[in-house]
């Protein structure tokens, strides 16, 4: 029956009953917009984390005593170098500096000019800055959040750190880190390694932790065991564990939304079901009348199926499109706070546009199947009853 006349009638029905369809489309678009936004945000965060973790070292070794992290001896680095299969051993100096008056903290990261890896990474991050000049004085590179925060608290151009030995250390703001790195570097202060040691109270033979790479992934499990046996207080973490902890956090937040979505969708499907079943007698009468006028059960089901598919597809496309604009062009106000909120400093994160088509297909199926079933099951039930009964 899918001839010109059928399509003509279908278009006519959709147009003439547009108020009925518009309300259904609007609710669907809202649900899909929210769900797609949440999934776009979590895909984008996951992508950014993956990209960040790609350039991170494979392993991090630190010293743990009584459950607390303490300074790691620099000499451990030499021991690591002696182990076959380990490369790029890099000691790191970093730590939190608390701005107690406002209960905020900054992440201080020390960079060794003589250490090639850190040097290169930093140069990549701030391509326009002359690194050599940066290492010449007591200077720091700050994240966008730090910069805004310091300026708001009248620290323009420099900041006085109170070191653990009770003296003040004035450090000049050399430049700001690019906003693309805000997800991780928003509250970061990058400074030469000796300066960082002083501010954090570390000795010259001490570091916060030591990183290294193990190029052969088959050796990762064995390496963890081997290192744990080296010192009783040696704590080792690999990149996959870091990735998992981040994913757990964002999956938890995304999962909460998914639960809410399923509840909303269930309610919506119930409303639709009622609309097309006993509650809306006009629907029943229309179907009964079509049957009385010579339409077969298949004809009626085909009409309602295509009508429903048009509503489903247009809602889906519109909802996903609006979500894309909201997340990747507007920056997802409100929802961003839910995902990145609770952060130390106000953060401006621009989400990298990432569209995961498998996720989009899942959204479509989760949304479309209950929707189509909620419409077609009652339509089918009415269609198979005698037209006279349906028209009553």
């Amino acid at each position, binding site marked *: 029956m899918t001839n010109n006349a059928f399509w003509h*009638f279908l278009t006519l029905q959709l147009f003439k009953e547009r108020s009925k369809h518009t309300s259904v489309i609007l609710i669907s678009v809202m649900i899909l917009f929210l769900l797609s936004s949440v999934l776009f945000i979590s895909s984008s965060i996951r992508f950014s984390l993956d990209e960040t973790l790609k350039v991170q070292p494979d392993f991090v070794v630190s010293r743990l005593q009584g459950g607390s992290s303490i300074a790691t001896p620099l000499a451990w680095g030499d021991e690591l170098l002696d182990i076959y299969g380990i490369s790029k051993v890099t000691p790191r100096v970093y730590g939190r500096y608390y701005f107690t008056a406002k209960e905020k903290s900054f992440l201080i990261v020390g960079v060794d000019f003589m250490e090639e890896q850190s040097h290169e990474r930093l140069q990549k991050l701030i391509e326009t800055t002359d690194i050599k000049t940066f290492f010449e004085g007591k200077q720091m590179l700050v994240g966008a959040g730090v910069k805004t925060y310091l300026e708001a608290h009248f620290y323009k151009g420099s900041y006085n750190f109170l070191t653990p030995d009770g003296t003040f250390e004035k450090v000049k703001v050399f430049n700001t880190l690019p906003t693309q790195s805000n997800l991780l570097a928003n509250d970061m202060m990058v400074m030469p390694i000796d300066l960082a040691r002083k501010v954090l109270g570390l000795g010259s033979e001490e570091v916060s932790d030591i990183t290294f790479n193990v190029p052969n992934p088959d050796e990762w499990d064995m390496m963890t065991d081997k290192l744990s046996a080296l010192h009783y207080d040696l704590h080792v973490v690999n990149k996959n564990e870091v990735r998992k902890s981040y994913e757990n956090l964002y999956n938890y937040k995304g999962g909460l939304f998914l639960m809410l979505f399923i509840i909303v969708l269930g309610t919506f499907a119930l409303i639709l079901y009622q609309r097309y079943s006993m509650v809306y007698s006009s629907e029943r009468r229309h179907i009964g009348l079509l049957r009385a006028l*010579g339409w077969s*059960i298949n004809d009626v089901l085909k009409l309602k199926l295509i009508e429903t598919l048009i509503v489903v597809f247009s809602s889906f496309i519109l909802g996903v499109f609006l979500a894309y604009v909201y997340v990747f062009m507007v920056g997802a106000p409100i929802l961003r706070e839910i995902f990145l909120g609770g952060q130390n400093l106000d953060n401006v994160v621009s989400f990298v546009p990432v569209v995961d088509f498998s996720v989009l297909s899942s959204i479509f199926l989760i949304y479309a199947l209950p929707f189509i079933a909620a419409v077609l099951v009652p339509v089918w039930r009415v269609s198979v009853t005698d037209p006279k009964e349906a028209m009553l």
Partner: protein
Amino acid sequence: MSGDMMIQIENLNRTFAHAGNEVKVLQDINLTIQKGECVILKGVSGSGKTTLLSLMAGLDKPSSGKVLIEGEPISKLPDAFASELRAKKIGMIFQHFNLFEHLSVAENVTIPLIPSGMKMKEIHSKVERSLTLANIIHKKEILASRLSGGEKQRTAIGRALVANPDIILCDEPTANLDRDNSLLFIDILKELHSMGKTIVVATHDPLFDNLSFESRVIPMVDGKIV
């Protein structure tokens, strides 16, 4: 079976379950209607004439017995065939007109032809012809919700005629019309009769007692033909 027989009803019974009781709406109906005949099913409300009409149209299923349209048992046919038979052979005019109020006159009349697979051009020409016959062509673009009772009735007639069916079934066609419109309807019925259509009217309206054209009145009382 005679070649002139259009509708044949054999030992037809229809019962409904109501409040735990079985209510017999039609009892042992036997009736034969010839091609081109006009039959008036006459009876008070609740006499079973509408139910009998619905069974003839295949809108309802008998509890027992048969309804044959040109020898085909309509209630036994699979849905696709029964629907095709309804679309091609039977034009139904309902008491409450049963129009799609959000569609125009012409669009309402188009509906029975949609499943036929005809091209839009052909459908348009059939709709025009039918609307002219039902004398409602001048209102073809008007929404059904804006029509008067008589205009709705003529739209329903147009819709019943659009597929050029052999049988026209009318359920209380003048119940919602004033006298002038009722007489107009009878004129249209006369024209249809002259075209050789088989017409069955279920009514209690006295206007159908003495029609100006040949007709057979079948009185019904309590679900039986008397």
